[in-house]
């Protein structure tokens, strides 16, 4: 009896609505999506090819040198980079690694390009903050592979929908931290900038962004790691890279291969994490 009480509300066709909406989008913007798909695919493939042109030994050395200087001339990360990347090369996963690098680089950069302006908007307007915040919460509570559905609907399969899903998944930290960083600028400093007659842009460039920089960098670091964590999931819709090896090992229950591909991902993740963190050092 009790169980049936709510049944007088007919089941709402929410799924249908969403589908109609998606159809609407795909129908009307089909040419745009296919343009992005083509253009994105081409540029990412050429980027990977470019990376592959660099001899692996040179690549490893360059990254190690960057790591050495970025960590204030300490050897730890540099040595780890050499050992780790050499291991990946040794396991014959170099091409996959480069595909993964491309995926991470593209999705992070796009997420940052979209995320920072949204974060700035949020910090400047309480209305915008109130609207965007719940959307970000929603985005972050969704499991990452949910984004594969619209990605596939818009772009089919391959690397472009992979990046699309990664961008959505990895966007929130950059937005949040940009907003936070700007709102944390002390009121007296904002007043000082205003009292000298700064325009909004001058205030942003000369005061707020520089002071928010380390907070924003912390957000970017998270965004990069999140987009890396999407690599395996994106491989479910055909994005190339280390994720695909993990996935296929999973599907065929090949523990050994899975472990190797997995550990390669972890190595890559650690290098990226430490590098982006050490770029974020204070000078004052």
């Amino acid at each position, binding site marked *: 009896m009790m169980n049936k009480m709510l049944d007088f509300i007919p089941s709402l066709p929410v799924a249908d609505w969403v589908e109609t909406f998606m159809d609407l989008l795909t129908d009307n913007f089909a040419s745009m999506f296919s343009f992005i798909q083509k253009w994105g695919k081409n540029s990412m493939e050429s980027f990977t090819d470019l990376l592959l042109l660099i001899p692996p030994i040179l690549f490893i050395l360059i990254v190690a040198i960057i790591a050495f200087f970025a960590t204030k001339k300490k050897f730890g990360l540099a040595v780890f980079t050499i050992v780790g990347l050499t291991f990946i090369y040794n396991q014959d996963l170099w091409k996959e690694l480069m595909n993964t690098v491309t995926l991470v680089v593209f999705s992070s950069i796009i997420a940052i390009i979209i995320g920072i302006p949204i974060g700035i908007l949020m910090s400047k307007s309480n209305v915008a903050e109130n609207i965007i915040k719940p959307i970000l919460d929603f985005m972050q509570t969704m499991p990452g592979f949910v984004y594969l559905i619209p990605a596939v609907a818009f772009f089919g399969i391959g690397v472009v929908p992979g990046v699309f899903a990664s961008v959505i998944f990895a966007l929130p930290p950059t937005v949040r931290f940009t907003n936070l960083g700007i709102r944390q600028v002390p009121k*007296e*400093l904002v*007043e*000082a*900038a*205003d*009292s*000298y*007659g*700064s*325009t909004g842009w*001058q205030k942003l460039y*000369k*005061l707020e962004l*520089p*002071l928010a920089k380390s907070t924003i960098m912390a957000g970017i670091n998270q965004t990069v790691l999140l987009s890396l964590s999407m690599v395996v999931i994106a491989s479910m819709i055909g994005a190339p890279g280390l994720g695909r090896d993990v996935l296929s090992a999973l599907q065929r229950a090949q523990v050994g291969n899975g472990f190797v591909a997995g550990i390669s991902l972890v190595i890559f993740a650690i290098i990226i994490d430490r590098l982006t963190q050490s770029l974020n050092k204070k*000078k*004052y």
Partner: protein
Amino acid sequence: MEKIKVEHVTKIFGKHINAAMKLVEQKKSKTEILKETGATIGVYDANFTVNEGEIFVIMGLSGSGKSTLIRLLNRLIDPTNGNIYIDGQNISKLNKKELRKIRRDKMSMVFQNFGLFPHRTILQNTEYGLEIKGVPKEERRLKAEKALDNAGLLPYKDQYPSQLSGGMQQRVGLARALANDPDILLMDEAFSALDPLIRKEMQDELLDLQQRMKKTIVFITHDLNEALRIGDRIALMKDGEIIQIGTGEEILTNPANDYVRSFTEDVDRSKVLTVENAMIRPVSINVEADGPKVALQLMREEKVSVILAVDKQRNFKGYITANDALEASKRGERHLHGILRNDMQTVPPDTLIQDVLGPMSDSPTPIAVVENGKLLGVLIRGVVIETLSSSNGNGGVDDE
């Protein structure tokens, strides 16, 4: 000439502003209004003018609306009501661009916690105002370096604010404001975060600077001694309202109400009050007309042992002691000229009490207060001390 004019300016924070407005007009208190409407009275019906070259001090307890009032002057806060004129221009009516222009050219602000940008060097901080105005690089560097040099901080120009002490940071804050060469300086508790010695030094520097540059300065403090020390005029605020405006002396000698009086109780009056407030009516005698007998009679009547001597025009001539008068009268002298002494100290009426305390304790006679040769009054130890300790000087008109 008046530089700033504030007319019926009110600022109410929060919603239900109209409801709050009605309640203030009914003389409800700030807390009652907050409870009933949720709105806070920041400033209510402020009216004052600041003259060119004046140091105008706004004083009041925490939360009395001082910061709100000063921020209304450059419109970091927009007024709810009223008009503010800078050089006759109504700034409450300016659009953003015009307002920026006024802020860039006419007034600079100095902040309690210095407001220096931590990511910029001292030089870059000092250049800030010029930089956003678009002054060419070389020119602004020269101007900023000059301002730093005047503050004695040029050697530190490439350091960051966190590397400097508080006093030095505030000097940079002041240099940054001055580099812009504004007519008006707005200083919100600019010295409150400094320790007492540095603070006094900075006050002296400000006074010194004012001597040289003749800026119009609006200075906020919650310290009456500071207000009295640097202010040409002082406005006293309570709960968003200005309750008295006047010179330090006027506020001390003639407080508008008990609140002001209580505020002024623990002040070192000797540094503010002039001898005019402590002098009493002199017992005097006309040396040209009167003789020793009259002098003795007067001294007996007034119960004094010394009488001051003046001529017909009340020009101060000296004094006569009771002993001398008695002797003279015994000798049968008719005139006072023979026994007139003229070693009495005189001071002009605008001398600070502080400056006569020393001489007074050394001197055997009272001190005469004389202006343009005319005798105005006399200073007696007991009365001076009493003036210093009472909460309203006997020179002022009592409103009780």
